[in-house]
């Protein structure tokens, strides 16, 4: 290849600069648009990540709260068998009462209200020492069934001091009627 003169080198240099400018202009704009869209995508991802990060702690707290309540009530709603719930709950209540020293009286079961949230209602009458009665009240919360004491009535058993007559109305809740997002009615 013959040696290039300075003029030829300058010509080549100018041509190379011109081509470089053209390529920069042509691809530079497209590249700029691509980079801008990549940056927008990054910002979108960053916003989404921030949103997820913000949502996580409250969600973790809810999970912890559920585990705490589930442990306190000895109840996992996901494992409730609706078909035998009323029978099992009634049996558990009666067993708890008997084990606590409560003499049971009439027990009445009625169907739940039409709203669907109450599966059944059990009215229990019994008599026993004050500690046994109070102990039963405590045990009802930890039997592992979705029970809500609708009404409690205590009267002393006059002929026998230290004895209480108790009348409990217990509602068995229908878990399947619960929808996500329902707020509890205090």
């Amino acid at each position, binding site marked *: 290849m013959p040696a290039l003169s300075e003029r030829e080198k300058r010509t080549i240099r100018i041509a190379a600069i011109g081509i470089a400018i053209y390529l920069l202009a042509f691809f530079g704009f497209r590249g700029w648009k691509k980079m801008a869209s990549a940056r927008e995508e*990054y910002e979108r991802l960053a916003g989404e990540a921030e949103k997820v990060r913000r949502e996580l702690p409250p969600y973790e707290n809810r999970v912890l709260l559920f585990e705490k309540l589930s442990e306190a009530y000895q109840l996992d709603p996901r494992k409730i068998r609706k078909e035998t719930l009323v029978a099992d709950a009634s049996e558990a209540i009666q067993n708890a009462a008997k084990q606590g020293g409560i003499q049971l009286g009439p027990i009445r079961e009625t169907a739940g209200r039409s709203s669907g949230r109450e599966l059944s209602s059990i009215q229990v009458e019994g008599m026993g020492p004050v500690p046994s009665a109070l102990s039963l009240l405590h045990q009802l919360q930890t039997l592992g069934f979705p029970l809500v004491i609708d009404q409690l009535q*205590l009267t002393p058993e006059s002929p026998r001091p230290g004895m209480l007559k108790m009348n409990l109305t217990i509602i068995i809740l229908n878990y399947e009627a619960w929808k996500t997002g329902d707020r509890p009615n205090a």
Partner: protein
Amino acid sequence: MNSRAKQEPDVFIEFGENSVHLLAGEKGWDGRIERDLQGNLSASSVQSLQQELGGFLHRHSWSAPRQVYCSIPARGVSIRKITVPASSGEEIKQVLALQIEAQLPLAPEELAWGFLPLNEAGTGGDPNLQSFLVAAVKRETLQSYRDLFAQLQLEPVFVIAAFARLYACEDQACGILDVGETKSEFAARESNGTVTLRVIPWGRSELFEIGPLVQALKTNGLPQKMLVSGVDVPLAPLAAQVSSALQRSVEVLEVPGGPGRSAANAGLQAQHEAGRGELLVLETPGAERAARVSRDEWKWAIGAGLLLMLLMGANYLGPILQKPRLARELAELKSYRASLPQVERELTFLEFIRTNQPPYLDTIYLLADASQRGLKLESLTIGRRGDVSLRGKVNDPDGANQFRSKLVDSGFFSRVVIEEQTPDQNRREVKFRITAEVKPEGQRKALPEPDPPKTEKPKGPARPPGAVPPPRGRS
């Protein structure tokens, strides 16, 4: 055979007063030129030379010779011997430039100049000094030649023809008189390398009268060896005449015949082939400096441009580089969130159980805590909404009120109402009926801490731990 495979020779071109001689290898060409009043090539000469030289180069298929050496007349050339402190490299040029500026009426940027080192004899043997032979000419003097070669796309190296002729002389100390048409150039080189140069206003048109020539030659010291050269000049008779007039030997410079073979071209060719001494090249340091400055400016401009691009790009580079990591992190977060159990419904259910009944035991505890001696509870009813209703009797007429006050003070109840107080016939007991509401969670006070159990004091003197108790029967 591919002509491009030929090795292009160097081209030597001498511009005389009215002639031009080109020598390239074995090929040569002679032509005529015209100069304007300032001594520059006329425009018509430049144009015709472009055609002639271009045609010559094209005929010999030389697209770009290796190098073009252009020797110019001595008109306008200034020669100085400059002694400077010993230095090397680029410093020499800088120091000489300062000396040129001091000794010549023009600044170095306005000159085309070159230098040759002189041997130690020029400095008197002082090792701290260096002597140089500096030749300078106005920069614009070379412009017409540059224009000519620019059109031919050649970058010539400019030398002084009188210096070039000296290379044809094998002896170190010699003088050469080159006879032109109306002017002659006499260059003498001393043993230390110093060169003196004179333009003598005498040419071949005055061959019949050599008096002015001899007079001019006698003005300066003459070297031992003198040679005479010229084109279209009867050199032998002239040499004899000058020799007779100067009373010293004057010979004819032997130059091979043929087109383009002038004394200067022959000298340059000999210098290249035989390596006779260093070539004094006229350069324009200002142009180099300008080119260097321009290059430096370009470098700074390119650097600034790159920095600007980097600065602007950094705004985008960061997100682009971090995007994969962020995407990974987001995927991990989503995966972790998906791994968490879906307990919204279950939690709502358990929250309902917790909040939809009052704390029965706490209520009973507070009622018991608020009751005083003599108060008898007859019935207690607590509803799911937190409504409390109790009936009882107390043997203190103010007992019911006190009981109610304690219930209110407990902070657990609101709307504590004594619906009925009825003293009995003996006015010993008061029957009462109280209703209240358990405050919602968050509004009621926390239960008071129970009193610590009382510990019984030990009977008898206290024994240190590990002591053996006394036997029974002894106090």
